[in-house]
């Protein structure tokens, strides 16, 4: 009876919609390559959605970082020494280095419009790795691939600048 009640139905539908949407967004990133949709969905349920107003600081360079962030809606500017490095939109992710090492953030992230961000914490990743070691290892491999690709891209940029 309760599941047919419109109020309950809408409540569940809203939550389900969000989980499904965030799952699809993560699945579209290279981080969840070769990881099943079901596992990604279970993981999404442990993630933390947060809302930011336009102009609000997500993190500062030097802040303690503990998570990777997916933009569900809105937009984020990544800056270092007041220089704009990137403009990110819904579906993009940032701060992946903090998922691996316990070091301060290296850039500033500021919401350039009202945004909803999904935080995937290092502690949740560690718990997931304990629960599903195979998928956890695959995720770590994917993140290493992303970081290696960014390093390669930076190296090419530097060599182009020098030449």
């Amino acid at each position: 009876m309760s599941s047919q009640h419109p109020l309950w139905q809408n409540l569940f539908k809203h939550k389900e919609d969000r989980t499904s949407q965030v799952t699809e967004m993560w699945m579209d990133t290279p981080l969840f390559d070769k990881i099943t949709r079901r596992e990604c969905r279970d993981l999404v349920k442990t993630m933390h959605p947060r809302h930011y107003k336009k102009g609000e600081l997500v993190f500062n360079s030097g802040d303690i970082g503990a998570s990777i962030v997916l933009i569900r809606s809105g937009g984020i500017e990544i800056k270092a020494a007041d220089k704009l490095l990137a403009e990110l939109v819904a579906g993009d992710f940032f701060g992946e280095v903090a998922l691996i090492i316990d070091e301060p953030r290296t850039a500033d992230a500021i919401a350039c419009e009202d945004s909803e961000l999904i935080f995937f914490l290092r502690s949740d990743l560690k718990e997931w790795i304990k629960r599903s070691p195979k998928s956890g290892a695959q995720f770590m491999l994917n993140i290493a691939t992303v970081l290696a690709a960014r390093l390669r891209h930076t190296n090419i940029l530097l060599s182009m600048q020098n030449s």
Partner: protein
Amino acid sequence: MFQTLIKHPLSRTLFVFSMICSVLILFAILLAPLLIPIIISFALYALLEPISEIFERHGLSRNASSLSVLLILVAVGAVCVSLLLPHLSAQLSTLQAQLPVVWQSITTMGNDFSRHITTSLSLDMQSSGITQHFFNQVDSWGKAALIEGSNMLISLSVLLVLVPIFTFFLVRDFRTFRNNLLDKLPNSSFEMGWLIYYRVAHQLQEYIRGIMIQSAIMCVITTIGFYILGFESPFLLGLVAGVLNLIPYVGPLLAMVLPMLLALGHTPVEFWMVGAAVSVILVAQLIDNVIVIPAVIANAVNLHPLVVIVGIIVFGNLFGFIGMVVAIPVISTMNIIYYGLYQGIKTRYNLNQKNHNS
């Protein structure tokens, strides 16, 4: 000047830290009657959470895995009680029968010793007065211990009911409760809050698991030692040594008292037995320090030994035996929270200063 002092990271950290401590103390006062079952349930949660994770990994839902963990806990508890209780009560009866003899023997020894001192040094020590005072003091401690013991027996029945219930709900719902609570943090301190929580939880889990394994190993080693020496209640003495091992540094010293008294109670007194009883504890400590601690408990808490000893004495004075057991995890938790807060607040302060200057 005053503005600078208020904005300084140290004063801000101290303010936030004091607020956190006040809230924790308030909760501790409100939950005082349930504090012991809650502490035991958290310790069991730290032990059983990995088992629940294994069940979940094999496809069981959170509810089913929590229920399975509860059933395991009840089954293990029932087996332990049914197997150990008869032995324990028999050994307790033996000990009870032995105590008057031990007492008599120690009294005679004490009187002989004071007579020997009086005659050999030609001193009028008013030995009877001193001895009387000493025995009166010991008598009052003994009575207090007996009353506390009977109170503990009443509490034990409450614990047997409450602990499994609390543990079940902790295994099932603690993660959700924790997430809801930490998600209430403002955006600016969300990540810092999670980081501090994770460090505290990780260190506490390591410590609780380590100390429990360590105590069980100590219990086994000392039981075997006392059995080889021919003590009449080896398991009981081993159990006492294992439980007292929960208190770092001070526990092993306290664990020596009962076997030493029992060894002294033999008539005629065999001093090699006293030495052997102390040796059992020392050998167990040696094995503990060389093998067990590096393997299971190393780096679980990173506190200076002096802080540990002072903490145990202060907490013991305030909250008795339970205070001595929880002293280290509480101090360690406070240490992590303080330094985590300080690190976060200082980073923000430095950035604000930099922005202000530029």
